[in-house]
Every structure is written in C-alpha cells, then in structure tokens.
C-alpha cells in the first residue's frame, strides 16, 4: 500500500520534473519578452506552434533525419528551427508590435496596453487559423526511437518500487536546462545581455546611455520566440501537435511567468517547473480531467498571496 503510493508519487514526481523543465523553458521565452518590454504576448503559444512545425519540416523534408539519424536528427532540427523563429519574432516585432509599443507608448497609462493586447490577439488568431490552412489539422509528432523507450530506476526498497522515465523526455529536459543556462550566460555576460537588462530596467535612462532601446526590444522579442520554439520542439518529441496547440500552452506559460514573478527570467523557469510538478502531482489526488484546473487554482492562489511571484521582487514601475 505504502510502497504503491511511493511508487506513484515518485513516478509523478519524475514526470513533473521532466515536464517542468520544458515548461520552464517555454515560460522563459515569454518572460524575456514581458520582462524587457512589458508586452503581454498573446501569440506566444502560437510562436511555439510555428517552432514545432519548423522543426518537423526541417526533420522530415530536408533530409536531416537521413544525415543525422533518428536520435540526433530531431535535436538538430530543433536547433535549426530556432534561428528561423528568432527571425520571425524579430520581423513580427519590427512590422507590427513596434508600432504600438516601445518608448512612444511607455508613457501611456492603461489605454496604451489595449493596443498591444489586441494586436497580439489578432496575430494569434492569424497564426492558429493560418496554421490550420497551411499545415492541416492532422496530429503530427517528432518521433525519435527514444520516445518509445524508457529507463527503469530501481527497484528501490527491495523489489517493491521502481519507476520508469522516458528517454526522450530525459534528453529533452537536459537540452532544456542547457538552453536555459546558455541564455542566462548570454544575459549576464554579453553586451547584448547588458543592453537587454538596461532596456528592461529603465528604458529612458538606457536611451540616454546610448543603448538602442527599440533594438533591444526587437532582440528580446526574437529571442523570446526562439527560446519558446526550442521548448516546443522538445515537447513535440513526446506529444503530437496540431495548429491549435498554442492555446493550451499559452495558459501554462502565463501561469509560470506569474508564478516566477513577472519579468524575472530565472523565476519564470522555476515557475514553469512548478506548473509541471503541480500538473503531474495533482494526478495523485485529483481526477485526470482536473489536472489543468489544479494549475489554475495554484496560479490564482499565488497571484493573490504573492502577486510579485514566488521568486520575484516587487519592481512595479509606476
């Protein structure tokens, strides 16, 4: 009895950590955009969907699979899809988002937000439905031989408890953490990272210091899209997807970003991790259908009890 519970608990914990690592990366992409430019990007889930399809096409239609094989190939495809999404994000910002955000609208209270909210909502609609026209609505997935095999951990405690972890998910989690580390280094150590941080902290002062704030915004938007595209590709190793998948995950992303403290990038990773854990561990006590409801309940609790997020500090700009 106890062993049985321990087993399902450990199994759920492992699943939560592995899912959480990917969710964390997703959230980081969104947090980068929000943190730097205070834009709520409704289309972020759909950017992720594009990243998934980009990786899928690269893998299946360009011969990457043949060259790199079934195990490494998907990761190469995901890596190659990233710059495409960075470019896409950069273009979307340059042509659309920049026209309603940035320094010109930084002064606007309240009403300035409307425009960007609805603009990204419009972009989301175009991407979702356009995706349906272009990609069709058949479920596809990036399969690797790893997706259907697992390591067995255990048996622990004699022969009673043993848990299984999917190899593809482990690999995805590792890649996700590595990406996160790379991004953290980029932000902490490079001139580009410095300009991002400066633009996030005080756009006006950054401008006076000779930092091109609008460029920093473009970079943040592109980078945010790219990061989330990596997370999407990793997710696709185990989950089939279709053009409307963005809608499911944009919620996870927002929950994670708020949990982590809006604007905090490292916090967003842990926020996403928390969401993954909550989602998987809730299986132990709740029916499966309520798994996602649990996310929202936790999300609401955090928002009320600690609006600055679990890991955030209060840096409300007034």
């Amino acid at each position, binding site marked *: 009895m106890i062993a049985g519970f321990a087993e399902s608990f450990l199994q759920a914990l492992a699943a939560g950590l592995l899912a959480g690592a990917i969710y964390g990366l997703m959230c980081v992409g969104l947090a980068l955009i929000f943190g730097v430019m*205070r834009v*709520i990007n409704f289309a972020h889930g759909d950017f992720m969907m594009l990243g998934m399809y980009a990786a899928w096409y690269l893998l299946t239609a360009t011969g990457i699979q043949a060259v790199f094989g079934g195990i490494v190939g998907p990761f190469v495809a995901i890596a190659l899809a990233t710059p495409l999404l960075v470019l896409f994000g950069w273009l979307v910002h340059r042509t*659309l988002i920049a*026209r*309603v955000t940035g320094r010109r609208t930084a002064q606007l*209270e*309240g*009403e300035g*937000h*409307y*425009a960007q*909210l*609805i*603009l990204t*909502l*419009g*972009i*989301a*609609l*175009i*991407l*979702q*439905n*356009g*995706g*349906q*026209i272009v990609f069709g*609505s058949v479920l596809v997935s990036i399969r690797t031989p790893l997706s259907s095999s697992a390591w067995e951990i255990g048996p622990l405690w004699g022969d009673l408890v043993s848990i299984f972890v999917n190899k593809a998910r482990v690999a995805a989690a590792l890649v996700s953490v590595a990406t996160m580390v790379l991004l953290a280094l980029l932000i902490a150590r490079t001139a580009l990272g410095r300009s991002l941080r400066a633009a996030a902290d005080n756009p006006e002062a950054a401008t006076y210091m000779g930092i091109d704030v609008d460029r920093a915004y473009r970079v943040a938007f592109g980078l945010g899209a790219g990061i989330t595209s990596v997370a999407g590709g990793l997710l696709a190793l185990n989950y089939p997807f279709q*053009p409307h998948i963005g*809608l499911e995950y944009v*919620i996870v992303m*927002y*929950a994670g970003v*708020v949990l982590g403290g*809006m604007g905090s990038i490292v916090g967003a990773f842990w926020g996403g991790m928390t969401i993954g854990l909550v989602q998987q561990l809730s299986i132990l006590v709740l*029916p499966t*259908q*309520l*798994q*996602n*409801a649990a996310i*929202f*309940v936790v*999300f*609401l609790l955090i*928002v*009320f009890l600690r*609006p600055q997020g679990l890991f955030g500090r209060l840096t*409300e700009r007034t």
Partner: protein
Amino acid sequence: MTKAPAIRSLAPVLLFAAAYAVIAVVVTNSYYQLMLTLVLLWACFGLSWNLLSGYTGLVSFGHAAFFGIGAYTAALGQIHLDLSPWLLIPAAGVFGGLAGLLIGVPTFRLRSHYFALAMLAYPLALYYVFEWLGYQEVTLPMKRENAAAYMQFADPRIYTLLALALLVGVVLLTLLIERSRFGMALLAIKQNEAAAEAAGIDTLAWKLRAIALSGAVAGAVGAFYAVVQLVVTPVAVFGMLVSAQALTVTMFGGVGTVWGPVIGAATLIPVAEILHAELGARFPGIQGVIYGMAIVVVILLAPEGIFWKVRDFLRRRRPAEATPLPQAAPAPAPAAPARSDRAGAVILEVRGLSRSFGGLRAVQDVSFAVREGEILGIIGPNGAGKTTAFNLLNGFLRPDAGEVLLDGRDMVGRKPHVLCRAGVGRTFQVMRPFARMTVADNVVVGAYVRAASDAEARMLADDAIARVGLTAVAGRLAAELTTRELRLMELARALAGRPRILLLDETLAGLGPAEAADVVAAIRRLAADGITIVIIEHTMHAMVRLVDRFVVLDHGAVLVEGAPETVTRDPRVIEAYLGRKWAAHAAG
C-alpha cells in the same frame, strides 16, 4: 442635467433598433437570421465587457466565466428542473452577477497585468471543472407542446427580436450608467485610480458594482445563447475564444462607448460567418485568419476602435467654434488678511508619524498640528519626506507608527476616500487630471462625495470652478489645458468635495512667476473662505508670502517649526537647503 441631451442620445438607439427590426423581419433565410441574432448577442456580450473593462480600464480576459455560467444555468436548469428560459435567463443574470462579486472581491486587489491574467484563469478552470462534471455536451430538450413557454420558436425571427430587446435594454443601462455618478466614478478610476480615491470615490465599491453588473449581463447573454444554439459545450462557452470575442468586438468598435461593441459585432460577426460559409470548406479557419487580420489592421490604424477614430475625424472637420479662447480672468486677490488672528482650534494633528520603505526611513517621528483656518507650509529639500507625509495623512500609505488625528479622532488605516468624506481633500505633485474628460466633468468627480444627486454635484462643481476662476474653460477637455489651468482644475476638484482641510502637494511646481501668483491668489481666496490649507513646496520663495506657519522637514524628520520670518533665518534651515558652508556664511 437637462432632458435634451438624454433624448438626443436615445434617438439613435431607437432608430437603430427600428432599422434592425425591419431588416430582421424582412430576412427569411434562416442562416442569415441566425447571424442577425448572433450579432446582437455578441454586441450585448461586448457591452457587458465594456461595462467593466471599457469604463474602468481593468482588462478582463475572463468574461467567458460569466457567459459560461449563464449558458449552463439555462441548459441544466431546463434539463434537471424543467424550468423555462423565461425564468432561467434572469436567473443566469443573477448567477453571473454573484460570480462577478465572488471573482471581484479577491481579484480587485490586483492591478493592471496581474488583474488581466488572473481573470484569464477563472473561465479556464471552470472549463475543466464542467468537463469533469460530465457536461461535455449538453443539449436542451425540445418541447413540442408549449414551445413558446420554453422560448422555442419555429420562426427564427422571434429570437432576433428578443435579442434586439435585450440589446436595447443593455444599451439603455449603459447609457444610464455613463451619465450618472456610477459612470463618472468608473471613468475616474480608469483615468487615475489614486486621484479618484483621493477625490472621495470608494473605488473598490464601484468596481464591485461594475463587475457584478457586467457579470449579470454576460450571464444573461450566455443563457440566451444557449437557448438559441440548443447545445452547450465547455469550449463553446468557457473557451478562450469566447473571452476574446467580447474583447475583440469592443476594441474593434470602440472602447468605453456604448456604440463600440455594437459597431464591432455588426462588422466582425457577419464578415467571419460569411467567409466561413463561402471558403470554409477549402480553407478551414479562413474566417479566423481574416478576423485576425482585421483586428491587426484596425489596431494599427485606429488603436482605440473605429468609433473614436470616426469621431475624432468628424471633430477635426468642424473646428473653431467648439474651442473658445481661454479668457480666464481671475478676480484680483484680496489683500492677505492679518495672519495671526486666523488660526483657531486644532483641526488636524499628527503625532509621532513614522514610515520606512525597506531601509529608508522616509518619515520618522513627525509631529505637528494644523489649526483651523491657517495656511501651513511644509517645506524641505527634495527627498525630505514631504509627499510621503501627505500620503500618510490622506490614507494612501499606512504609517508604521504614529497617529493622524482629525478633530481628535484617529484616522490611521482609513482609506483615502473615507478621509475625503471626513473633509480632507488633496491635490497631487504630479498632476493627475482625467485627461479625456472635460474640466467640468473632472471637477464633478470630486463633488460626488458631498452631493446627494447628480444635479447637486454639478452645482458644487460649477461653484468650485468659479472659485478658482476657470469658468471660461469649463467645457474643454483636460488634455487641452495649460499647466496653470490644470493646477487650478485640480484645486477645483479638491474643492468641489467641500473639504475643511486641503492638502496641496507642490501646487506651484512648474509655474512661472506670473502663473504662480495666479494660483497663490486662488489659494488665498480659499483660505479667506475658511478652508484650512496645508501646502507642500520645496522652494520657499512663493511660500513666504502665502503661509502663516512653516514646518520644515529634512531627512524625514521635523527640523524647525515656526513663522516664516523666523524659519527663513534659521541657520539649520539654511544648512539643510544650501549646506553647512552657506549656513556659516549666513550666520556670519
């Protein structure tokens, strides 16, 4: 208000309704008829969203929560209790309103982005709960006999007419609110919540009323939607697209106006539906793409919606006559009465007030008393804690220690609007005008705290505007005023609430000497009328001629207190302002 404007705004509503009814009766194609019904329903839903988000500026991403609750009320009530929609639609309104209150009480603690995102979570959580409860697809039972009693009509035109009645009801409700103290309070909250609170508006109470009303309308619309569609699924009523729909039609048409959602729904819904019907088979999702593109284009060209764009365009077409030149000629300032004999009993007393922000002790152990009828100046260099002291006085901040006694009663922990009601008015260092409102409307907002009726509020406001000499520009938008006029307008807004004490935060900042003299004259007139005034300033210059007494703050503590002549010569004051060297210089 007179009756003429009310009729002028009713006429277009009735015209629209009549025209729509004619179209509805003429159209026989049942598909187009359904579209006519849906346009009205989504317009109503947009209006419900507008009631909360359009007027208060708090964007809700979760209006599907109310809509879905309404839809399931109608469906489940008819299935399990065999009740008629005639009863269930009002019931759904009640449930929607209750849900609004339940959601509002905790969620209004959050601001801007946090509020918007928290709202997102409610319908999605409900979505999963209803799915789990086994309501994946609920079909309303058909009633062969007694169909009309169950709102089931063979002729789809009746649904359109019912929806039209609902829309007219909601439009009238919105118009009523827009013109009343309710609407004024919401607009004030949208423009500047802090200023609204300081003007005596109980912002939380009004926001709760707004969300309850908004939820009630959304609930009723959801119920009606269920009756029209006959099938209710979680995704169709709690889905993200439902919330987005409310937002989209309103923002497309125009935020914060009764016509916005109507224009938005009437444009977007048919476009989307027709595209879907024409091209849906070959390009699934084509309506979503076009819909998205329409939104993007409108946002880039008319970010606040079509209504405002057209209105601004029309306004530009007929200029001149609407904007008379300002001819503000304030009455000459009365000679300052002898100072010493004005001060009466202690009206406001501060004892041991302290407040820290992290390690910074912004205000420490500050005590002083304000006597009835005097003009007290609080001065001190930048960062001395003057504004913090005001924020503690009028309830924006809670002191860590100390008392604020108004007529001997401790007011610590009261909200700003309560203090305003008790007679403490204030203005702000950074001016907080309601930019989109006229001067008169700006001032009316401040008057409601003392007025029982709209008419009385107008009277108080007109009086306050006259007292500061702004009558000539009363009809202009606040955004068009000069700094001097804005300062005077803020003064009038605080005055309209008939305060006994007026806290003025750097009212002279940013004014040239001549303009400052104008404002000083206005303040003097108020003092002469018996209002006690506490004024903050960091320059002493204009103040010396104005105040009866100074309290000098430095590093959050009281440095000196006394008559202007003594304070300006005090070496400690000179040192605080100019540094030690100059203090020695002045002393020598």
